[in-house]
């Protein structure tokens, strides 16, 4: 049901019955390694291209979420997925493997929550009972697509971010117990005129702030109503800016309740510059780390705000600025059920 200007409230409780997370070697060396289902030590996954490796980790994340729930791929009614490669081929090829009715999404790094919001909408409206929502990114394919060859020796500035190699999938069901989605806020495009693709944090921070503000306004809530508000991939630079912007807009931002997936996924001594980024970043941190913490009872209500920079290599070369977006989904766990 629509509430306020741009938020949906899911009164029928779409449940996240299981999740699957698969990551690459760099993430496996990070502080959240124990929260992920599968860790790969090889960027290639024995495939002959990075694009195929990306498809493979997405397939594995989907398989993992299905096997955890004790379901088969035939049980998926709708599959919602997206990534950053041209024409989102890794998602479409994974959908070929799953042979489930498929909706391909592109929301850049906000795809994880875009898929979860739409999946929840399908369940809540009764148009489906089992929906698989996924997002994937691979460091080498994204670097190739948006920046320079991976082995190119260009010096990156400290505001740059490291694209996460990882895939996260969440299986939504109308039946279940435990963690469910309660609401979602669909973001609008915010463009503050930043045009440097090595400074995504600054570009995306205002979009995150806009969506958080809209969510709080539409639902009449504040930071006090959530145990954690976590943004997708702002990194250290963007996180600081977003926090200061929220304070400027008159919010009190408790440090222990506001975090970022891009900061959590890598430790400070890993050479990831400002932090992690990519579709897979918010997907694996949310579906791995956050879900685990909720199950342990450390967190009860979480708002995940996945941020995306909707640029293309072409728009960047033509000196266009970077339009950004953020989608928020709130998760809640009911221990009594």
């Amino acid at each position, binding site marked *: 049901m629509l509430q306020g200007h741009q938020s949906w409230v899911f009164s029928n409780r779409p449940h996240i019955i299981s999740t699957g997370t698969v990551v690459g070697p760099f993430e496996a060396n990070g502080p959240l390694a124990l929260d992920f289902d599968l860790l790969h030590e090889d960027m290639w996954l024995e495939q002959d291209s990075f694009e195929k490796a990306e498809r493979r980790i997405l397939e594995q994340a989907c398989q993992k979420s299905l096997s955890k729930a004790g379901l088969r791929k035939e049980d998926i009614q709708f599959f919602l997925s997206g990534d950053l490669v041209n024409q989102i081929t890794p998602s479409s090829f994974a959908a070929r493997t799953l042979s489930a009715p498929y909706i391909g999404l592109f929301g850049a790094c906000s795809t994880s929550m875009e898929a979860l919001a739409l999946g929840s909408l399908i369940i809540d409206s009764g148009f489906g009972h089992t929906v698989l929502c996924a997002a994937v990114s691979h460091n080498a394919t994204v670097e190739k697509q948006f920046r320079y060859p991976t*082995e190119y*020796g260009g*010096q990156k*500035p*400290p505001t740059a971010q490291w694209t996460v190699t990882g895939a996260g999938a969440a299986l939504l069901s109308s039946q279940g117990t435990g963690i469910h989605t309660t609401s979602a806020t669909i973001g609008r495009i915010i463009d*503050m005129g930043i045009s440097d693709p090595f400074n995504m944090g600054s570009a995306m921070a205002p979009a995150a702030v806009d969506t958080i503000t809209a969510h709080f306004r539409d639902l009449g809530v504040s930071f006090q109503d959530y145990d954690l508000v976590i943004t997708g991939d702002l990194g250290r*630079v963007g996180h*600081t800016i977003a926090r200061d912007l929220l304070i400027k807009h008159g919010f009190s931002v408790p440090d222990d309740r506001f975090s970022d997936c891009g900061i959590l996924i890598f430790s400070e001594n890993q050479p990831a510059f400002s932090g992690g980024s990519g579709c897979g970043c918010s997907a694996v941190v949310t579906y791995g780390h956050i879900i685990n913490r909720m199950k342990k009872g450390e967190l009860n209500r979480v708002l995940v705000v996945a941020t995306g920079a909707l640029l293309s290599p072409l728009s960047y070369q033509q000196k266009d600025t970077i339009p950004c977006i953020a989608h928020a989904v709130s998760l809640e766990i009911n221990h009594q059920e």
Partner: protein
Amino acid sequence: MSNQKKKTLTPVQQEYQSFAQSREPKRSVVHNCFTAFVVGGTICLLGQFIQNFFIWQFGFTKETAGNPTVAVLIFLAALLTGLGVYDHFAQWAGAGTAVPVTGFANTIASAAIEHRTEGFVLGVGGNMFKLAGPVIVFGVFSAFVVALIKTILTSLGG
């Protein structure tokens, strides 16, 4: 250019950009210049050693030893690129590894490796000069202009 860009921004965008800029970590220019100077100088010193070696061991002259020296440096840079070491070294060294001929070799080798999965013709062949191409185009063109000016001046001056 940056001034021209600023003019098209709205006051809100301009305000945000200065807000964001004050919170962004800056590149350390002094430190980068120093490492670039030391690393770039060391690569040139290595080149000098190789050149002297060719003169001393293979009987090249000062003029002819240049070509095999450059070939050795290009080979080393391409090898290190292939082994996946060069980009990590370059992140630290900055312009120190980008400016000498090793940087040029790295742009070609890295692009060739990157596009290998798309095949030899359209992948490697079509993309290996992706980064190095502009350097060649504008290098050749500016050499042509300089040669033209020199020719005109010498013919005028006699």
